């Protein structure tokens, strides 16, 4: 059922990015190794899960405004063996660029962990800031992004305390892609985020190293 969402998102992304009035757009695929650190059930320690997620994403921009949508899905397993956890992650962000060197975004970030027949859903409303610069002409660029969660719906009886995260990476533009005249680009990124529930009693940390490719017009 969840896998069926992938083509739906893909079709949605293509339809959105094909909008004729868009001034810029891009769409791409990503693959990331993910690592989850969460408290172990019934113990005062934490457990780490490792896995991979495959994602789709797209951006469509109108002048200083930009919509960013991303969906990823995969699974992670404990390092010492055990049942795996399916991971579904999606976000929709509205970005504005008031000045050329920084952009601000806001939007929902939903995440679900499916394990043992149960599903734990997180819904986080995030405020993000992003900045970057080009290093080699228009070809190589780097960026850094940080965010703070403004509000959340968490699957816990303890109250939500706070959450934040950051992401950094670099992108390379290759000119024309094999698909035609559209510019082709690749991206390498590292992302880490942490949610704190119950005044620090429960901390959930995720970090991932991802690689992505995409086509589009800036």
């Amino acid at each position, binding site marked *: 059922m969840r896998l069926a969402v992938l083509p739906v998102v893909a079709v949605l992304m293509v339809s959105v990015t094909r909008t004729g009035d868009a001034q810029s757009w891009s769409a791409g695929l990503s693959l990331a*190794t993910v*690592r989850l*650190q969460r408290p172990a059930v019934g113990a005062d320690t*934490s457990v780490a899960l490792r896995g991979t997620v495959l994602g789709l994403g797209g951006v469509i921009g109108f002048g200083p405004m930009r919509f960013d949508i991303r969906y990823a899905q995969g699974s992670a397993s404990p390092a010492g063996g055990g049942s795996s956890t399916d991971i579904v992650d999606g976000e929709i962000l509205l970005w504005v660029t008031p000045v050329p060197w920084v952009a601000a975004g806001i939007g929902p970030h939903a995440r679900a962990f499916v394990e043992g027949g149960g599903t734990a859903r997180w819904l986080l409303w995030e405020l993000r800031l992003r900045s*970057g*610069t*080009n*290093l*080699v*002409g*228009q*070809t*190589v*660029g*780097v*960026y*850094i992004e*940080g965010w703070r969660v403004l509000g959340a719906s968490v699957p816990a009886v303890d109250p939500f305390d706070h959450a*934040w*995260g*950051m992401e*950094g*990476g*670099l992108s390379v533009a290759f000119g024309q892609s094999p698909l035609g005249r559209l510019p082709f680009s690749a991206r*390498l*990124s*590292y992302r*880490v*985020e*942490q949610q704190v529930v119950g005044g620090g009693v429960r*901390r959930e*940390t995720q*970090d*991932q*190293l991802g690689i992505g490719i995409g086509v589009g017009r800036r």
Partner: protein
Amino acid sequence: MSRRALTLLLGVAAIGFAEPLHAQRPDSLVAAGVRAYRDLDFELAAGYLRRALTLLEARPDTVLRTEAMAYLGAADLFLERPDSVRSVFRQLVRLNPRYRIDRLIFPPEVTTVFDAVRRATPVTVVALPSRARFSASDSALMGSVFASAYHQIRVEVQALDASVVRRVYAGPITDSLAIAWNGQATDGIPVSSGRYVLAVSSLDSTGAAVRVLRVPLDVTVVRMDTLLAPLLPTLLPTRSTGPGGLASLLGGLAIGAAVTILPSAVASDASPGAGRFVIGGAVTIGSVVGFLSARRQHALLAGNVAVNDSLRVAWQERQAAVASENNQRRRNAQITVLVGVPQVIEQGQ
């Protein structure tokens, strides 16, 4: 009354009624001289004609003067005054280079001498309208040059300082020559308003001017307004300027450091993965590589180059069109020429 007394009375009356010669008009003197010439009284003829020429000097009319000179020269010839003959005929040729002595009236001795003097006296006269108005692009000041004999001439429009504005003609002339000046200087642009001179120089065998006929020209030029040259369009930068500099290097290094360090702060009690070092290192290396490559050459913006080329081509086309239009307008000046009284400068006299 005796017969002697009657004769004396008639003589006195005749003297009293007769008009004194010095009070006669020049044409009467010329007529008297011609009659005396025909009566072969050359001395009397020469006297009448010289007096007539003295009276005619101030007159602009040249017809009577030329007739008087022709008969005077012939009379002097038969009086065996060769120097006077050449002098009179030379004056006659200068007065009217187009004059040809009538071979039905004068004998070959006279015509031969006149022709010799005429050939030895290369002079010209110019016929121009007193006022002419024309467009410099398709019309001209039209005139004619008449010569006494075959010789080389040079026709130029000169400034008042005798500098050549435009050479109209240089070469031989036999009897007459049509000339035209379209009001343009040597560079093809109409002259400025002002005073000029149409100089017709008669040249000797060495090419030196022996006589210059100077015709004053008062030129008024009304030009059409010209268009301003189109401004060079604002071109797009052809090379990237922002990235690759020191600011980008520092920014990249800062991002690389942030990616490496900040995860520890975000995940305070967790252990961030080694991926942050991969990305942080890649960003740092990319920053250094970008900085070093940017020092050599900024990236060429091909799209901007193409746009600039098209802008530059369009600008050049507009510039050429405006230049052509302005050139046409400059050549289309309306010119009015007032022709003054010619003056003759004899060289070497």
